[in-house]
């Protein structure tokens, strides 16, 4: 067991607080229960709703598919199957253009509105830890906080005694998004079952909910439900973005630091999103795989901001229409929250497993401010939760010095957006960081190649 203790540095405190930014909360939709939307006419099931290899379609054009039916299998170890969220007919298997310019394969299904449930959907019998992991693997569940990492990979642990604590990420630090909050309130019983499963199969000694203090209703619900459970701790954290960042939350709940290139498991922690846990419990109880999601629909242009239970694959246009359409012309539409969300080129893109919010911004909010000179105020440096130095990245990048980037640890940047947010000169620091990360990756690959070349010469 390898616990990383915080070392005393010359100029650093033995126990320090991680900085962050006070972003506006805009949790407008937190008090309203999620509403189920009707089945749309057509859905698009993308094959890249997770991190890793694309899923492989196992249905053909013209096939009749049912709710919960597996329509694509995992394309590798780090991958996840895809299940149909509606009943209908496969219209075509084509590609979808995403906002980063890549074409990704997708299955287009015309719905029949019957919502017939597939025979495949049966309660799962789970007797052992292996069964538990296998069940998660088959459920198609991925990290629902937005990262989309296949959940079963996290649980495929060789030595269970390694697990000292399970951290349940209920921070939901992004502005606007309240879908996790609603899950905690509306699906509390599933969460309770999920916690029992963790205790039973993972043998977790501590189960820690990490939650921001701006979700009072959810905190009350959780503390009432788990008041008799000795293993469960509810850690109420300040609402300081990015509280829900993996490394940040692990540090703030367990005071452990996940070192560069290591996994949370290496410091004895398994971290899982709260909605993901609720879905695992629901799958094991009912056998219904991940086919629908609670999505926060908000932003200045949306007529009725609310949480909507959406079949995965629904076009975002249909979801906005369900929420009363737009009251103002949207100029920017995005997946996820405004700090890390992805801006979209059109409204034809579907809701994926990773989508926890869709936002529509008006012209004023959507306009990107013009950057000016860096005034060296140090706000980005002093607010970076990972103690990084964004202006130094930019300098090293502009001077084309990738060897500097190695020392500055740009690879640790999680692109949370705090540096760009706080910058008074409105400089695009996150973009620079991304560019620096890509440059560093290329440089390291070249170095490796050179090294290998040298070794071959020596032979």
């Amino acid at each position, binding site marked *: 067991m390898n616990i990383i203790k915080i070392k005393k*540095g010359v*100029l650093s405190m033995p126990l320090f607080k991680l900085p962050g*930014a006070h972003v*506006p909360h805009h949790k407008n939709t937190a008090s309203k229960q999620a509403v189920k939307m009707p089945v749309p006419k057509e859905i698009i099931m993308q094959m890249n709703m997770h991190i890793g290899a694309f899923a492989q379609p196992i249905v053909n054009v013209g096939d009749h598919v049912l709710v919960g039916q597996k329509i694509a299998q995992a394309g590798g170890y780090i991958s996840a199957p895809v299940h149909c969220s509606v009943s209908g007919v496969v219209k075509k298997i084509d590609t979808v253009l995403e*906002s980063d310019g890549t074409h990704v394969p997708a299955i287009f299904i015309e719905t029949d509105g019957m919502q017939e449930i597939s025979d495949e959907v049966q309660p799962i019998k789970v007797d052992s830890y292996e069964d538990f992991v296998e069940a998660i693997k088959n459920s198609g569940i991925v990290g629902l906080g937005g990262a989309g990492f296949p959940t079963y990979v996290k649980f495929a642990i060789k030595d269970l005694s390694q697990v000292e604590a399970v951290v349940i990420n209920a921070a939901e630090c992004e502005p606007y998004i309240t879908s996790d909050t609603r899950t905690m309130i509306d699906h509390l019983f599933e969460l309770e079952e999920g916690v029992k499963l963790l205790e039973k199969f993972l043998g977790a000694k501590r189960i820690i909910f990490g939650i921001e203090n701006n979700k009072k209703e959810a905190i009350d619900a959780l503390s009432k439900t788990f008041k008799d459970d000795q293993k469960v701790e509810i850690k109420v954290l300040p609402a300081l973005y990015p509280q829900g960042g993996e*490394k940040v939350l692990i*540090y703030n709940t367990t005071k452990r*630091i*996940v070192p*560069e*290139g290591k996994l949370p498991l290496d410091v004895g922690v398994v971290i899982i999103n709260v909605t993901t846990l609720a879905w695992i419990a629901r799958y094991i109880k009912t056998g219904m795989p991940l086919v629908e999601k609670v999505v926060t629909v908000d932003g200045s242009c949306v007529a009725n901001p609310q949480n909507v239970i959406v079949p995965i694959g629904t076009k975002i*246009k249909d979801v*906005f*229409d369900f929420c*009363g*359409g*737009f*009251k103002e*012309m*949207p*100029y*920017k*539409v995005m997946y996820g929250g*405004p*700090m*890390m*969300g992805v*801006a*979209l*080129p*059109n*409204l*034809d893109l579907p809701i994926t497993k990773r989508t926890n919010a869709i936002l529509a911004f008006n012209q004023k*909010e959507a*306009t*990107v401010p013009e950057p000016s*000179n860096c*005034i*060296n*105020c*140090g706000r980005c*440096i*002093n607010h970076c*939760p*990972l*103690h*990084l130095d964004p202006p*130094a990245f930019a300098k090293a990048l502009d001077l084309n010095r990738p060897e500097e980037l190695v020392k500055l*640890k740009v690879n*640790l940047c999680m692109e949370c*957006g705090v540096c*760009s*947010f*706080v*910058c*008074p*000169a*409105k400089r695009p620091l*996150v*973009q620079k960081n991304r560019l620096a990360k890509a440059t560093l990756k290329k440089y390291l690959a070249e170095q490796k190649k050179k090294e290998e070349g040298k070794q071959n010469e020596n032979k």
Partner: protein
Amino acid sequence: MTKNTRYYVFTDSNGKQKKVKVSHLDSNANSINVKGKVQPITVTEAGTNDLIVSSSPHVWSKTTTSKIMLDVLIALLPAAFASVVLFGLQAFILIVSCVASAILAEWIFQALCKQKVTISDLSAAVTGLLLALNLPASVPWWQGVIGSIIAVVVVKGLFGGIGKNFANPAITARVIMLLAFSATVGAAVQPSIVDATSTATPLYILKENYGILPSLFEMFVGLRGGAIGETCAIALLIGGIYLMARKVITWHTPVIFVGTVFILMLILNGNVEVALYEILSGGLLIGAIFMATDYATTPTRAWGKVIFAIGCAIITVAIRMWGSYPEGVSFSILFMNILTPYIDRLTRKKPFGGVR
């Protein structure tokens, strides 16, 4: 793919009908739901994608460069007001000529160099005002104008504009003026509302042990010889507290700079009263609050600020005690400005989770 721009008509909150492009909303749809009503879309002419696709984050804090500079100007207002009360019309003329010429110089310089004119960020105004407050009332307006031009064009503009200068523009300009116009800039002018019994600054009196010192209260409200903006301690402290409350500066630099000077003077003189006189005289307060906290030329991290402030204090004390000039705040800040990049590198934090 068809390249059609579609328009749809909807009623806005004022009841007016609006016609808007919707080419980006849906490539196939022929209707859109606005305010619960399905509106028809009329296909008209060719168009392109209209949704803004930009990199995250999509929200920004309200703090901007010009708001920060405005806060500095507001924080300097009490000192500027005090200077006009204490030194009269001459102080007013000096402030106006320095601020106006600094803004004008930046505008002309940037226009001539075909750069984007950035006078709206107010940094030139801050530089001009700081320079004026650091000059005694004996300086004629045209010398103030020359100083402003040196500060804005030579020290800031030629190095790339705001944020790119390595030395504090106002201080550098003041030091150049001190050498060029020693008679006026080096003079010790008494406030016009005081019966001028002495023509020496308290620092000169302390150093030469000759003359009558004003009382500590007089020192605190600014009834003593010196530059127009540096004498009124209470006005400067109000400005400093405002800047800290607005989170424009942190407490580190001013508190440690002034505190270290006090402690060193206490040790070297063995007298609390002398130490108090030392921190209230010269340009220590204006320097510690407004000059040693300039973003571009001072360290960014807390520990860097501590080192910077201690360095400034030691040099100030050394010049005051053993140097041939009575005052050393300007020189000390200028000297530490040069060391700033090295202090910044020295105090860089270990990345969270980084393995060396």
